[in-house]
């Protein structure tokens, strides 16, 4: 571990358990961040339940389901990457990581098509088409765009983290007996998955 500034003869302790505690605490903050949005969802769904159902008809269940499956599978490959590394199989570990990233990309591509289809239909914040709809529908799409958008942002951040992990493994900075970084990256990735597990039924399965 390079400590460019802590160059005094500080004894750098390796504390995997501590690193994991730190990561979990960070995940809690993410949980609460999305929690705020889910509170809004709860309130508005109660207030506008008819309009929500109406608006949700525009969303494509098939796309949503495929994306869910993709994300769940990417979570699996993420775990497998850790298992492989722990078993000493550096190559497989990297391979699984790459597959995870490919899935993540796939998720984003599908998301992109979904969004652009909506936007093509004139449904986007501030559009005239939306302005003609009822308040409840405007709010539904407002929530849809912010929540899936923020989730998408997290996918992108996750991909960046995974890229670092890939690099670390290849440079032997993450090794079969020092892989807490990879584990923490994995935890982050699962969190992104967890959020989606809730977003999916709340937006797509409203029929």
């Amino acid at each position: 571990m390079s400590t460019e500034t802590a160059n005094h003869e500080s004894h750098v302790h390796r504390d995997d358990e501590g690193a994991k505690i730190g990561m979990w605490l960070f995940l809690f903050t993410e949980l609460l961040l999305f929690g705020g949005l889910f509170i809004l969802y709860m309130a508005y769904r109660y207030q506008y339940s008819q309009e929500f159902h109406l608006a949700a008809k525009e969303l494509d269940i098939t796309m949503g389901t495929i994306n869910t499956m993709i994300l769940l599978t990417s979570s699996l490959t993420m775990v497998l990457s850790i298992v492989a590394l722990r078993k000493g199989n550096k190559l497989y570990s990297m391979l699984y990581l790459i597959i995870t990233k490919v899935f993540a990309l796939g998720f984003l591509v599908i998301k992109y098509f979904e969004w652009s289809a909506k936007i093509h239909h004139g449904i986007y914040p501030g559009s005239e088409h939306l302005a003609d709809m009822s308040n409840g529908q405007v709010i539904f799409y407002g929530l849809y765009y912010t929540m899936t958008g923020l989730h998408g942002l997290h996918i992108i951040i996750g991909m960046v983290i995974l890229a670092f992990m890939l690099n670390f493994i290849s440079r032997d900075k993450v090794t079969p007996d020092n892989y807490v970084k990879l584990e923490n990256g994995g935890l982050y990735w699962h969190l992104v998955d967890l959020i989606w597990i809730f977003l999916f039924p709340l937006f797509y399965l409203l029929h």
Partner: protein
Amino acid sequence: MATQGVDTNYTSFLDYQGKHKGIFAWILSTDHKRVGILYLISMLGFFAVGMTLGFLMRFEMLSTGRTIMEPQTYNAVFTLHGIIMIFLFIVPGIPAAFGNFFLPIHIGAEDVSFPRLNLASWWLYTIGGLFTIVSLFLSGGPIDTGWTFYVPYSLRTTTEVIFPLLGAFILGFSSILTGINFVTTVHRLRAKGMKFFRMPLFVWSLYSTAWIQIIATPVIGITIILVVIEQYFGVGLFDPAKGGDPILFQHLFWIYSHPAVYIMILPAMGVVSEIIPTFARKHIFGYKAIVFSSLSIAFVGYLVWGHHMFTSGMSDTSRWIFSFFTYIVAIPSAVKVFNWVATMYKGSIKMSAPFAFVMAFIILFSIGGLTGLVLGSLSTDVHLHDTYFVVGHFHYVMFGGTAFIFFAAIHYWFPKMFGKMYNEKTALWSIGIMFVGFNMLYFTMFILGYLGMPRRYYDYLPQFETLHQVATVGSWVLIAGILLMAYNLIKAFRSGEKAPANPWGGLTLEWTMPSPPPLLNFLEEPVVTHGPYDYELLEEEGDEHGNS
């Protein structure tokens, strides 16, 4: 700087020359002590700005109509005053400055768990502060929404709100990093023998605070993001014209901001629990009761945010529920106050500056807290909400509570941090003057509020003029006290006497090391065999002025 203290063959963290020179040796240092001092200095800077704005506000209130500024200026001034005081001074406050410095020492560690994150948090703090300052000079002009950023006004105003909002977001991030660091440090880096119930109460209070920082701060984060998104894209989530509900904004805002008031006060309570035993030479009364009251404040704090919204138009059911819980949350604070006073019983008390601050604190915080009870009551709050009564309440708890203890902490740890002593007598005088000015300034506000003077008012009805003038004069007295204190400390920093390792006879671990502390804190790895307040052991050993 020459070496000081009893032990001369060590490098103090102040003298240490690392890879970087000059200012970089500080702003790139991951040493928790240096980060703590960076925080301390930057916070004092912002605090001085905030106080100057407070002074200007009081000056404007000297007479009806215009005194020195236009309405728009006034609105910007109280907003900036609030933002600076809350987000840049009192929330990072004691944890970031004294927590960073003393938490690792108190538990016998060399540093925090994630030193680089710690430095990053200071950088984020600085950047967040800059965002806020920069916004003053952007085209829209300084933000005028009040520190609460209530929608829809914050969506409609033409002033620059994005930058201060992003600033607050970044500051939130900084606060979260501090929280994560502290929780992990407490769990992982305690020295041998430092059992949980041997930790000083200051550490316990920081630990509870850290949890609030972690859990509550993200909620303000998302709230801010939503307002920014609303400004740019108009998604409508908070815009009544599009079906959004402004009350939901208030919910999200206060879900953070009420627990945040405990982020402000808990560390101060921790410092009080250190200072009283030290100067009374006596074991703290009810150690575990204080520990659990800290933890329970951290939890119960989430149940009461709605007491800021009694008149907001939320449902009547939730009004009484929140009022009920507000009363519950007062109990742990009461427990602490009683335990502190009980600690003084049969002590051997030395009235020095930190202790005098604590006495002022107990009175002022009690007044602030008890007026909190008036506000927690449904029927009275409906009358007093958004009047000067509330302004009085929160200045009592934040200024009389936290800021006074911030000053106390400076005086308590000044010899340790900088290795110099200040003039005790001058310090006591400044405390006296501040106490008088403080009450003149803020007690008047309770009366004003009860008479129906709303807050955030540029101008007021003639019948309020006399009371406003009393308050303004009070602010001048207060200023005199603060300036005297600042002068005394600056003089001590320049040319104070050398401080011994343990000037007060305290028992926590920082007093076992020379002043200022060595680079890696402990010259040898500490082993803890007794609690932080076991003064009976000290007496048995017959050890008086505790040279270690």
